[in-house]
């Protein structure tokens, strides 16, 4: 009973930090001790390890969209033209 509750709490603790762990964003870093504890939990909890795999798969899938989420050369050229014009007008 107690070990079941402990496991549940460990999963909850890990789930709360999973996004920060996977993103490693500089705005919200985990402490090294938290990283070690989370990685140790992922190594022995298949349910949380599966959750991490699903998050990684989702990120990889969305990352592929970024290749298609890119302005065409015409848009880039026009915007560079706007900036060039601003600079020329500013120097005139």
């Amino acid at each position, binding site marked *: 009973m107690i070990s079941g509750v402990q496991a549940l709490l460990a999963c909850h603790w890990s789930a709360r930090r999973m*996004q920060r762990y996977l993103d490693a*964003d500089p705005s919200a870093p985990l402490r090294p001790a938290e990283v070690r504890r989370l990685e140790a939990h992922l190594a022995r909890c298949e349910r949380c390890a599966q959750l991490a795999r699903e998050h990684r798969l989702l990120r990889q899938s969305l*990352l*592929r969209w970024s290749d298609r989420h890119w302005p*065409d050369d015409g848009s*880039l050229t026009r915007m560079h033209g706007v900036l060039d014009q*601003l600079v020329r007008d500013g120097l005139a």
Partner: protein
Amino acid sequence: MEPEIGLLLRVAFTLTGSWADAEDAVQETLVRAWNAVDSFDGAHSRAWLLTILRRTNANLHRRRRPDVVAEPGECSGARPAFGTARPLNPEDQIVETILEDTLERAVARLDPRFRTVLLLVDVDQLSYAEAADTLGVPVGTVMSRLSRARDRVRRQLRGCGSDNRSGGRQ
């Protein structure tokens, strides 16, 4: 400003859902940034530009779309903002075929607040702080919305896609 033009266009496209509107927003952003450059301290130029883009887009949005949809439920048929497709390698094509329809539907069903954060961070590759600047919300709000968006999409992928994936859930 010049190195950030591509990023500004991508982010503007995520915010507006249209390349034409994105160009309008970025053009106006460049003009405003140029006019304000003397008061810019030179630090965090990307964050500064993203903040100007957010304000510019809000102004353009008010002028352009007085009938903006406010209820997420009314957006259920909307699709995420995509650009022109590039050729994929064979391995990518397999995974893409399995997931794409389910993923697009799942993302399209998200509340726009959640969908925008997901696209800014996972597609446009902004940091939490940059996404926060773009949306004018705290970093904690970005993290919370991102977590909810990913959970909702992940649950839908789990339901629809796991049967198709080799090495799926046990």
